[in-house]
């Protein structure tokens, strides 16, 4: 117990001393996760709109597949992307392996299904009359989509936060595609895994505290927007 209390107090001191190594790791984490969340949102939100409003063959199947992909393990994505970007892969010449870009690619694949399915559920909850009203008031397809987007905005923010929460906490993709290179691809989760391996708990616990705080804050914001979306 003493050991845990010691680690915890040293960790808090480390955070308080604004340790550069600690903040570098946090910085990489936030940058990679924000970028992948942004890209996944730009793809997933329009995709969710299209799937909701267009009728096409295989729509139900596609939604089932997307729901299944919600449970995709990070290590499977890591392996899959590795196969493409490793030296022997078809994109090997791009030299992407063990870069932040590689991590972003993997994370985007991880959360596109999350953003898309959450968008579908947020948009289909919006009353059909919003779309009909926009149309009868003379709106074109894009303006009509914008009306629905505005009404669904809280649900969509919740989708984006959910996705960000998923990538900031994942470790498989960051480890396999990023390689945990100090100063470049070391994120909070990979750093924690490494420090744990070394038996160094202080930095690990400090990062754990930061990660938990981030998750906690995201959860509060998520529930705030989810609540708003139900009004």
């Amino acid at each position: 117990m003493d050991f845990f209390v010691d680690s915890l107090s040293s960790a808090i001191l480390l955070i308080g001393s604004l340790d550069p190594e600690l903040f570098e790791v946090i910085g990489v984490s936030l940058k990679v996760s924000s970028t992948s969340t942004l890209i996944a949102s730009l793809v997933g939100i329009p995709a969710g709109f299209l799937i909701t409003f267009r009728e096409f063959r295989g729509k139900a199947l596609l939604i089932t597949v997307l729901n299944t992909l919600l449970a995709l393990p990070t290590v499977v994505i890591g392996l899959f992307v590795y196969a493409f970007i490793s030296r022997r892969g078809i994109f090997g010449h791009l030299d992407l392996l063990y870069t932040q870009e590689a991590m972003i690619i993997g994370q985007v694949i991880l959360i596109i299904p999350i953003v898309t399915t959450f968008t579908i559920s947020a948009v289909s909850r919006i009353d059909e009359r919003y779309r009909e009203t926009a149309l009868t008031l003379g709106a074109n397809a894009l303006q009509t989509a914008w009306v629905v987007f505005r009404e669904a905005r809280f649900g969509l923010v919740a989708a984006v936060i959910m996705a960000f929460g998923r990538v900031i906490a994942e470790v498989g993709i960051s480890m396999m595609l990023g390689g945990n290179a100090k100063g470049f691809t070391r994120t909070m989760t990979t750093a924690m895994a490494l420090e744990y391996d070394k038996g160094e708990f202080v930095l690990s616990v400090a990062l754990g505290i930061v990660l938990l705080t981030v998750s906690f804050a995201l959860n509060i914001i998520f529930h705030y927007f989810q609540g708003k979306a139900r009004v």
Partner: protein
Amino acid sequence: MLYGLKRLKKIYNHRTVLDIEDLTLEKGHVTGLLGPNGAGKTTLLKILSFILEPSLGEIRFKGKRVDFAGGNLKDLRRKVVLVQQQPILFTSTVANNVAFPLRIRKSEKTERERLVEELLELVGMLSFRDAMAHRLSGGETQRVAIARALACSPEVILMDEPTANVDVENQIVIERIIGEISQKRHISVIFTTHNMIQASRLAEKTISLFEGRVARSTYENIFSGSIEEDEKGDKICMLQGGMKLYLKNGKPGSVRISIDPERINIWREEGDRTSINTFPGRLIQLTDENSRVRALVDVGIMLSVLIPKERLEELDIRVGMKVGVRCPEESIEVF
């Protein structure tokens, strides 16, 4: 001619909800679409506002055939606007809602503000300009929705049960607005209602819909019963309450019938019991309807009878009096 509809059908899941053989709607009028719930009124309005595609048939707007698959729907929709039964306002202020059609038409800001003010004034909602739209009551929402529809400067305004979900006070205001839209702004108004009295009060022309079809007469006095044949081969419809109506035709079995209120005879004192389809009753209510008077007679069931005003004076009947009514065979329609 504003609209021309030919052999128009709307089918949902193999069920025909609208089946219109031939219907013309004229420009510049207030037209009432009358019918009970499920008659297809809302479906027809959605088709007339070009937001729902008919399954079969043809619709012409100002003489031109409407091509639902083609790309000119937006241009058509900008001439016609629908106010839904329970209109939905965007989550924003009242003023922003009314400004929406003006914004997407890229109207200038000062002009936009002037129009928003003018329209909110027309519907009596100017003091709510900065209120959040979703906090309004049903009647207030309806009035803002009408102002927003008018901001489209439409040629036609379609209203689905404009007073169904509002209190009496708002109902009066909305009926006044409908009159103003038509007379001062010269916009054609087509509205649906299940209230006969409202239809005859507001509309210059009334079209009755029943089970998706345009009815020949206003389907009133609708009753369910069963047709039987007596020993002489006469067809009798047994209504609830033990009333017997002799019919010209109709197959035996359960049916619904309607009795045309314009063709029912009415006179003072009790009826001559010996002649067929004649019943004694009591006059419950008399309502003024333009050139006619509607009499509500309790003959065991409530019968609505339309009487020309000059005839009423001859009849000299008053509420509470005993009266006799006769429903001639030709006044009865079986469906």
